[in-house]
């Protein structure tokens, strides 16, 4: 039986695989061991993509996951192990608050929607009315994320919904993708927050929206109810609302709450 040895060695493999899995679980269990609040364990923060730059400036020690506010809401609904939720709109935190999944949302900043073009501005866009010209490649967020919601509100306020929608060539799931498409010159124009435009220094050209077009953009933050690290969550929110945190937000272009 030449295969006896082979069989024996094959039989060892599953055992080795299980041992590897067990070892993996073991190590992760020890690292996340103390689930009760302790000052040493940093808060896990799910935050809107538009906060990617400023939040780590306010609290470098926290653990972040940035994304579209809608996707983050979905993650919290499916039980993501998070302590804090920060969104670029009251909608998502309010929906979670209504379901009892987060504490009462608090506004911590406001933002401003702007039109951006690539620095070279290939489509020669000088005002928001230019985006309705045929052939302009416009990128906006999905209607389900705040930046997409705000962009559509701006269209409505300006009465250009039909013409602008016709020029939309792509819808993204968060604001940073709009900025990337414009900064790379793939798109002719896109709607992002002034704070994102500022962060892309030099790569995009910013066009302010007329006063009547501006949707009110508000950033909200809340403690996740299922958090095992409430103290850190509350400390994080306090830091964002503190004068020091607010100064950092202001420095990055955010408005007062």
């Amino acid at each position: 039986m030449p295969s006896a040895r082979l069989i024996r060695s094959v039989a060892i493999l599953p055992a080795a695989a299980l041992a590897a899995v067990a070892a993996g679980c073991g190590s992760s269990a020890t690292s996340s061991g103390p689930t009760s609040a302790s000052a040493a364990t940093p808060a896990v923060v799910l935050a809107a993509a538009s906060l990617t730059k400023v939040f780590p400036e306010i609290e470098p020690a926290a653990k972040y996951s940035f994304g579209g506010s809608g996707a983050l809401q979905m993650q919290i609904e499916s039980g993501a192990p998070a302590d804090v939720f920060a969104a670029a709109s009251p909608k998502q935190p309010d929906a979670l608050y209504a379901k009892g999944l987060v504490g009462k949302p608090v506004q911590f900043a406001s933002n401003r929607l702007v039109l951006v073009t690539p620095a070279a501005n290939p489509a020669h866009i000088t005002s928001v009315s230019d985006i309705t010209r045929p052939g302009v490649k416009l990128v906006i967020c999905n209607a389900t994320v705040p930046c997409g919601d705000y962009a559509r509100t701006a269209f409505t306020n300006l009465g250009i919904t039909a013409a602008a929608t016709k020029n939309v060539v792509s819808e993204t799931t968060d604001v940073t993708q709009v900025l990337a498409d414009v900064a790379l010159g793939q798109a002719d124009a896109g709607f992002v927050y002034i704070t994102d435009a500022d962060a892309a220094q030099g790569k995009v050209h910013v066009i302010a929206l007329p006063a009547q077009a501006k949707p009110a953009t508000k950033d909200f933050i809340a403690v996740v109810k299922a958090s095992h690290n409430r103290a850190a969550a509350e400390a994080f929110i306090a830091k964002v609302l503190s004068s020091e945190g607010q100064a950092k937000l202001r420095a990055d272009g955010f408005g007062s709450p």
Partner: protein
Amino acid sequence: MRRAAGRAALGVSAAVVCTLVLGFLILPIAALVTYQPVARLIEGFGTNIATEAMLVSLKTNAIAIAVILGLGTPFAFLLARLRFPGRSIVITLVELPLVTPPAVAGLGLLVAFGRMGLLGGTLGTLGIEVAFTQLAVIIALLFVAGPFYLRGAIAAYEALDEDLLDVAATLGAGPLRRMAIIATPLAAGGLGAAAAVAFARGIGEFGATILFAGSLRGSTQTLPLAVYSLFDVNLDQAIAIGVLLILISAVVLLASKLLIARWTSSKSISPSRGELSPSTPS
């Protein structure tokens, strides 16, 4: 006695391993299929967003697979038959996209074919618009799925009996004839399997497409992109489209297996070998 006990233990552990592996692979699919009542699931298959994405997916994949077969087949034949210095480097280059993360592939396509990319200006002056068009989706598919076909096709041609092709050459068949009339029918099973894998990979393609082609309903939004855009809005619908994707892939893989099984049983190599045997008067 002891031997019997050992055998039984082996049988039990074999059953445990099989159950573990199969269970692990099947569970997520079963969870997706049973997530909502069947009626609702089928309703989800027929929504506008699903239908539009389905049309985009089928159209772009059909074009991509046609290009992959048309250019990839002769390329694979040449690479399988020719021996030249640096051949292994060429094969590595062909296989590189297989292990390139899709997001990296998307970035590569952006900086190569994007409006500001290496070829962007050239394409622009030729009047070829790539950004956010179905052409971009097809380019992404060619890059991501194409190598799956190439690798399988090269292996299929390499597995052929060298003598057969040499004999055909001595009988006066030119290289093109040898490829079209002898090698390709004999390798058809392997080529079919490679094409099926490439198609299934293409239907599921996501990362490179969303980065390079963007996502717009009815234009560049393929089925996987529709799943991504829906998952935070309407999980039921996103899952329905996901199940649709799994069904398509399952049908493609199963159909290719059946076809190949039929092909290899009806076109066994021995009779054609007889026809081409050197004893045939030349």
